[in-house]
C-alpha cells in the first residue's frame, strides 16, 4: 500500500459521520504484510463500509476502542441476521440517523462483512473445521496433561473425560491448572514473549539486581549486610561464618531470580487467582518473594500475609545446590505475593525494571523501541509492517522535525510516538523519573487518537503507564494479542499471516479460507475468555478443545490449505525433560537447568542472544535425541524392575505386566504363550504410555516392537550359550551404569542392597532396554 492510499484512508476515517474521533488509530489495514484482497465481496458494500463503519469497526473489521470486532460477531451468523442488526442499530454517532443504513444498504454492508471478515462459507465452523477430524478426547487429555502439567492423566481423570466428554475435560483441566507444574509451563510460554529470563542467575550473574539503581534501592544487596563474613578461628565463629556464607550466597541467587521473574510471576499470580489477564498491564502492584521484598523494601498489599517457610527436609538453599548445605534460610523462593514499592505507580509488567531494560531506550530513541514492543506484545500490531517508503536515503534534512512533518515518516510515528511518550517518566535504566523533561518535538502521550490528560484533578500525568495499561485493556487488539501468545504456546506455531495475492488463484483462495477460519475460531476463543472475566484458563481450555490442537486426520478433498493444522511439535528441552519425568520418573542429566549450552544445542533459548526456538531438528539435535534414548533406557529399565509388583501393589511405571524372569521361550525352545502375551501386553502399555498410541495387541506395530524384543533376547541366548566366541566376552552382569544401584527418582541415592539389580541372567532386562531405546527415540516421543 503506498503512502497516498494510506493518507486517503486516514482522511476517510477522519470524515466519517459515524464517529467522534478523527483518527481511529486502527492500523489493521495498514499493518498487514501484503495487499490482502478479501475476495468475493460486495463492491457497494465495501464502499459503504469504508464510509460509515470502518472508523469504528476498523478497516479489517478487527474492531477499535469504539466499535466491536466484526469477525465471528454475535450477529454475524448469516447475511440476513447481520443486515437486520445493521438496519435497526447502525450507524451510531453524531449527525446520523439509525435509518441511515437500512434496506439495500444494510444488505450490501452485511454481505461485505460476511465475505470479507467471516469467510462466509466457513462461519459455521467457529469451533470445528470442515474436513478435520479430531483425536479421541482421552488422547487430547493425555497430550494436554503431559504438555502443560508434566504428568500423565490419572485413571479418575480419564474416566471423567470418557464419561462427560468436553465438560469433563474442562473440569479436569481447570483442576490441573491449579498445579505448580502448570505455572512452570506458563512461565515458559510468556518468557518466550517477554524474554526477561535473560536476567536469571543461570544466564547472567546478578543480571537482575544489577539493573536496579543503588540509590533508589539501597537494600539491593541486603544479604551482604544481613549475613556478613565472620572473622575468627574459634569453631563457633567458623561455623557461623559458614552459615552466613551459605545464607548470603543463596539469598543472592533467590533475590536476583525473584526480581528477574517479577513480570512472569505477575502472570502466574493473575492466572492462579483467576484474575483478569488485563492486570498484566494494569496491576497496581508487583510480585515479590521474601528475598526480593527486602531488595525493594516493598510493602505487601495484604498486611496480614506472610511468606511460607519450608521444613528442614525441604531446605530451599540445599535443594538449589548442595554447596549451600549450611544455610539456615527456609523461606520458600517460589512463594510470591503482591506488594507495592513506595513511589512507583505500578502498571503491571510495564513498570518492571526487567521489562524496561529488556526493551531499552536512549536519549535519541525516545522510547520508540518500547512503543514498538508494546504494540507487538499487547496490541497485536507490527509497526514495521505499516506500508510506506522512507524518504530517499532514509534521511530527511529538510524538515525540522521529520517525524512530525514528513508524511513518509509520520505514517508510522503517528502510531508509535504517542505510546512512546507515555514512557516519558521512565529513563533508559528503567528508573521512575517523574520530573523528566520531555521534548515537544514528539507526539503527546496517548493511544489510538486519544490524548492523555496532563493537568487537572483527573490527570494521568504522574501515572502515564497506568493510563496506557487501562487503555490497552479496553482495546480489542489486546484480546488478539493474548490469544496469539497462547496459540503459540499451546499449539506451537505462529498464527497464519494474511495471504498475499500473488499466488495461483486456487492456492490463494484456499489460503484465504484457512486464514479467515483461523481468525474466526481465535476471535471466538478470545470473546469466550473476555466473557469469563478475562480468565486465560478459559482460553487455554478452548485452544485445547479446538481443531488446531486436536486434529488427527485431514480430508484433503474438503480442506486444501492444511499444513498449519495440528499441534505436533518438536519438544523443547524443557518440555522433553518434563515428559521424561512424567513417564520415566526422572529427566536427562545433559539437559538439566544449569546446562544452558546443551539446551541451546537442543533448540532452546537463553532469552538473550538466542531468542528463537528451533522447530526443525538438525542432525546435531537428532543425535542428541538418540543419545538421550540410549542413556535414559539404560538408566530407567533395570531401575523400574526394582519397584514392587505384586497382585496387590504395582508401583512400576514401565513394566507393569512383566518381570525379569518372563521369557518368550523355555530352555527347550518351546514358546511360552502366556509369557508372550504378557510381554506384548506390556509393549502395548508402553506404546500407550510413552507414545500416546492405543493399539490392539494384534497390531503390526506391537508385533514389530515384539520382534525387536525377541531378536535382542535371542542374541542374548546365543551369547550365553557360547560366550567365548564373542569379544568382549558377554556376561550376566549388567553394564555398570545400566544396573539398578541408585534411586533415579531421588537424586541417585544408593538403593538398599536387597533392592538392587546388577545381573540379567536371561537377557530379559537388556531386551527391554532395547525396546525402551526404540520407543524413546520414536517420533511420537520427541514430538508431542
Amino acid at each position, binding site marked *: 500500500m503506498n503512502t497516498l492510499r494510506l493518507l486517503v484512508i486516514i482522511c476517510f476515517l477522519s470524515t466519517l459521520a459515524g464517529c467522534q474521533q478523527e483518527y481511529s488509530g486502527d492500523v489493521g489495514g495498514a499493518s498487514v504484510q501484503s495487499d490482502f484482497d478479501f475476495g468475493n465481496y460486495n463492491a457497494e458494500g465495501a464502499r459503504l463500509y469504508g464510509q460509515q463503519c470502518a472508523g469504528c469497526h476498523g478497516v479489517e473489521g478487527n474492531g477499535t476502542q469504539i466499535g466491536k470486532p466484526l469477525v465471528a460477531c454475535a450477529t454475524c451468523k448469516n447475511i440476513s441476521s447481520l443486515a437486520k442488526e445493521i438496519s435497526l442499530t447502525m450507524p451510531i454517532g453524531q449527525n446520523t440517523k439509525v435509518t441511515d443504513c437500512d434496506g439495500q444498504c444494510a444488505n450490501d454492508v452485511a454481505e461485505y462483512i460476511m465475505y470479507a471478515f467471516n469467510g462466509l462459507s466457513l462461519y459455521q465452523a467457529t469451533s470445528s473445521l470442515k474436513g478435520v477430524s479430531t483425536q479421541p478426547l482421552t488422547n487430547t487429555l493425555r497430550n494436554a496433561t503431559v504438555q502443560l502439567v508434566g504428568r500423565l492423566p490419572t485413571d479418575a481423570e480419564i474416566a471423567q473425560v470418557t464419561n462427560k466428554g468436553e465438560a469433563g475435560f474442562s473440569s479436569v483441566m481447570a483442576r490441573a491448572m491449579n498445579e505448580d507444574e502448570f505455572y512452570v509451563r506458563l512461565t515458559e510460554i510468556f518468557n518466550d514473549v517477554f524474554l526477561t529470563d535473560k536476567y536469571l542467575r543461570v544466564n547472567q550473574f546478578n543480571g537482575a539486581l544489577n539493573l536496579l539503581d543503588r540509590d533508589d534501592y539501597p537494600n539491593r544487596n541486603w544479604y551482604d549486610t544481613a549475613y556478613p563474613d565472620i572473622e575468627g578461628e574459634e569453631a563457633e565463629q567458623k561455623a557461623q561464618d559458614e552459615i552466613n556464607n551459605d545464607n548470603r550466597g543463596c539469598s543472592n541467587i533467590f533475590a536476583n531470580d525473584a526480581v528477574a521473574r517479577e513480570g512472569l510471576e505477575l502472570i502466574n499470580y493473575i492466572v492462579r487467582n483467576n484474575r483478569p489477564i488485563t492486570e498484566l498491564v494494569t496491576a497496581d502492584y508487583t510480585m515479590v518473594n521474601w528475598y526480593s521484598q527486602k531488595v525493594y523494601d516493598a510493602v505487601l498489599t495484604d498486611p496480614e500475609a506472610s511468606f511460607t517457610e519450608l521444613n528442614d527436609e525441604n531446605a530451599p538453599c540445599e535443594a538449589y545446590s548442595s554447596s549451600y548445605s549450611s544455610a539456615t534460610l527456609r523461606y520458600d523462593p517460589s512463594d510470591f505475593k503482591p506488594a507495592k514499592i513506595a513511589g512507583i505507580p505500578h502498571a503491571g509488567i510495564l513498570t518492571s525494571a526487567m521489562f524496561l531494560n529488556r526493551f531499552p531506550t536512549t536519549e535519541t530513541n525516545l522510547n520508540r523501541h518500547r512503543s514498538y514492543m508494546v504494540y507487538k506484545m499487547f496490541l497485536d500490531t507490527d509497526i514495521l509492517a505499516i506500508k510506506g517508503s522512507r524518504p530517499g536515503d532514509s*534521511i530527511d534534512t529538510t524538515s525540522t522535525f521529520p517525524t512530525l512533518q514528513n508524511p513518509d515518516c509520520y505514517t508510522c510515528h503517528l502510531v508509535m510516538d504517542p505510546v512512546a511518550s507515555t514512557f516519558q517518566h521512565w529513563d533508559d535504566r528503567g528508573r521512575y523519573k517523574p520530573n523528566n523533561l520531555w521534548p515537544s518535538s514528539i507526539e503527546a502521550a496517548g493511544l489510538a487518537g486519544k490524548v492523555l490528560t496532563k493537568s487537572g484533578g483527573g490527570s494521568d500525568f504522574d501515572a502515564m503507564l497506568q493510563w496506557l495499561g487501562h487503555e490497552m485493556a479496553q482495546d480489542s487488539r489486546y484480546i488478539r494479542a493474548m490469544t496469539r501468545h497462547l496459540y503459540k504456546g499451546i499449539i506451537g506455531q505462529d498464527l497464519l499471516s494474511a495471504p498475499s495475492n500473488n499466488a495461483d488463484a486456487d492456492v490463494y483462495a484456499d489460503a484465504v479460507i484457512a486464514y479467515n477460519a483461523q481468525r474466526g475460531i481465535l476471535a471466538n476463543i478470545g470473546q469466550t475468555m473476555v466473557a469469563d472475566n478475562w480468565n486465560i484458563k478459559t482460553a487455554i481450555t478452548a485452544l485445547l478443545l479446538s481443531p488446531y490442537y486436536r486434529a488427527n486426520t485431514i480430508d484433503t478433498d474438503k480442506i486444501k490449505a492444511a499444513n498449519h493444522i495440528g499441534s505436533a511439535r518438536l519438544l523443547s528441552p524443557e518440555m522433553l525433560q518434563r515428559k521424561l519425568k512424567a513417564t520415566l520418573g526422572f529427566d536427562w542429566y545433559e539437559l538439566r537447568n544449569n546446562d544452558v*549450552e546443551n539446551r541451546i544445542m537442543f533448540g532452546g533459548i537463553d532469552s538473550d542472544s538466542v531468542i528463537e526456538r528451533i522447530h526443525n531438528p*538438525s*542432525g546435531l539435535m537428532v543425535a542428541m535425541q538418540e543419545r538421550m534414548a540410549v542413556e535414559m533406557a539404560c538408566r530407567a529399565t533395570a531401575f523400574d524392575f526394582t519397584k514392587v509388583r505384586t497382585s496387590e501393589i504395582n508401583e512400576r511405571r514401565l513394566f507393569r505386566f512383566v518381570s525379569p524372569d518372563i521369557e518368550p521361550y523355555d530352555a527347550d525352545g518351546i514358546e511360552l504363550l502366556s509369557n508372550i502375551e504378557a510381554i506384548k501386553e506390556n509393549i502395548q502399555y508402553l506404546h500407550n504410555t510413552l507414545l500416546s498410541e492405543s493399539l490392539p495387541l494384534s497390531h503390526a506395530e506391537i508385533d514389530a*516392537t515384539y520382534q525387536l524384543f525377541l531378536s535382542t533376547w535371542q542374541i542374548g541366548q546365543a551369547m550365553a550359550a557360547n560366550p567365548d566366541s564373542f569379544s568382549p566376552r558377554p556376561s550376566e552382569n549388567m553394564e555398570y551404569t545400566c544396573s539398578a544401584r541408585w534411586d533415579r527418582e531421588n537424586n541417585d541415592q544408593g538403593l538398599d542392597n536387597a533392592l538392587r539389580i546388577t545381573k540379567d541372567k536371561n537377557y530379559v532386562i537388556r531386551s527391554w532396554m532395547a525396546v525402551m531405546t526404540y520407543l524413546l527415540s520414536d517420533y511420537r516421543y520427541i514430538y508431542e
Partner: protein
Amino acid sequence: MKRRNFIQMLAATGMTASLPLTASKAHAAAPDHFLVMVNAGGGWDPTSLCDPKGNLSQYLSERPDARNEGSINSVAINTETKRNPVSGMTWSDTPRINNNDDTTARVDTQFQNFFTTYHDKLTVINGIDNGTNNHSSGNRATWSGNLEVGYPSLAALFAASKNPSLPMAYISNGGYDFTASLVSRARASSAGFIDRLADPNSDKYHYRNDDQSTDIYAQIRQAQAERLARQKINEALPLRRQQLNQLFTVRQEDNNLAQLSAEKTIIEAIVPTNDHMYNRDQNFKKQASLIAAAFKAGIAASANLSTGGFDTHGNHDNSQYQNLGDLLEGVAYLQEALTAAGIADKTTVVIGSDFGRTPYYNSGNGKDHWPVTSVMVMHPTNSGKGGNVFGASTDKFRAQMLNRTTGQPDEFGQLLTPAHINLALRKELGIHNDALTAGFPLNVDDFSIFS
C-alpha cells in the same frame, strides 16, 4: 548409510521430496565451498573502521551541540600508515581509548594487523544504504537483502542450496538466522559434548562386539528406520507427515560428528585460542575453531558468527574501537583456523552489521543509529579477488548515487543497497541461478562489486 547410497535410494523411491527442501539436484559428497557470516551486532560504525572521514567538524553548523566540534571522527585520516596506496583502501586511525596507552596500542595493532595482512583478500564495500535504523529490519536487510520479513539469511540459503542434509548444515549461535524452513539450524557451541553424540551407543550400553558383527544398537536403528518409514506412509495429518519426512531425511545421513572434535583438536593445536587477545572474548574464537572444524569434517556448509557491543549510544570511542579491534582479531583468528584446516581457499567470509552510526557525536559522546553502512568480504585465498574498495559514501557519510560498474559516485547511477550486495554475493557463491534462490528474488540491477 553413506550419502551417495542415500541419494540413490531416495531417487529410486521417489522420496527426494522428503528432503527438508525442494532441492532439484544431487549433492556432492562433501561441501566444496563454505560461507561464514560475521555479524557485528548492534550497528557498527564504518567511519571508525573502513570508511573514515576524519575530524573536520563536518556537522558543526548543522549540529552546533554535537560533541567533538561536530566532527564525524575524533581522529584525522592517516594516509601514511592507514591507507594502501594501490587500492586506496583506508582504515581508521585510533583515538586515545580509555586514556590508556596499552589499550590504545592494542587496538591500533589489531586494526593494522588485519588490514595489512588481509588486504589482498578483502573487498570493502562502502556507502550502502540499509534503509532503516531498526535493529531487526537492519539485520534482515544486511543478511538477506530484504527489509521485509520472510527471506532466509544468505548463509541459510547457501547451506540449503549446497548441502541441506548435512547434520549441521547451517550453524548459528545468534544473529539473523531465519531459514524459511529450507534447512535446519544447528546451535553448536560445545565440541566436547558433540563428541559423545557421534555414536549414541559409544558407552556400549547395548552390546556390540569388536568387529561389530553382533550389534544390538544397529538392530535398534534398523527397527527405528523401518517404523519411521511405516509412519510416513500411514500418517494422515500433513503437519506430522512433514515432520516425519524431515526426521527421516536427517536420520538417514551419516552424521560424521566424531570427526568434528578430532578436527577441532588439530586446528587448536596449530592456532590455540589463547594465543590472542589475552583471553578476552574467547567465545568468538571457540566458535570460530568449531566452525572451521565442522567445515573440515564435512558436516556443515555455512555459519553465523555473531558478536555484540556495537550499539554505542554513549561513550562511543572507548567502546566501539575496542569492540572493532576484538572483532578484527577474531576474524583474523577465523582465517587462521580455516588455513589450519586447509579450507581457507574455499571459504568466503562476509562481515557486516545492522546499519551504521551517526556521523556526529551526541551529548553523551555516543553515536546513534544511521542507515548508511559498509560490508567487508574476505574472499577465498588465491581466488584472485580482493584488495579492492567498491562504493563510497559522501564526505558527510551519506549514501549517494554510484556507478554500477565502477562503484564511483555518479549522478546517473543508483543507490547501493543490501539487495545489491546480496545479489552480488549470491553470484559470487554460485547460487544465484538455483531453484531455491528463485523463490527469494531480489529484483535489483547488478552492481559489479566483485568483478
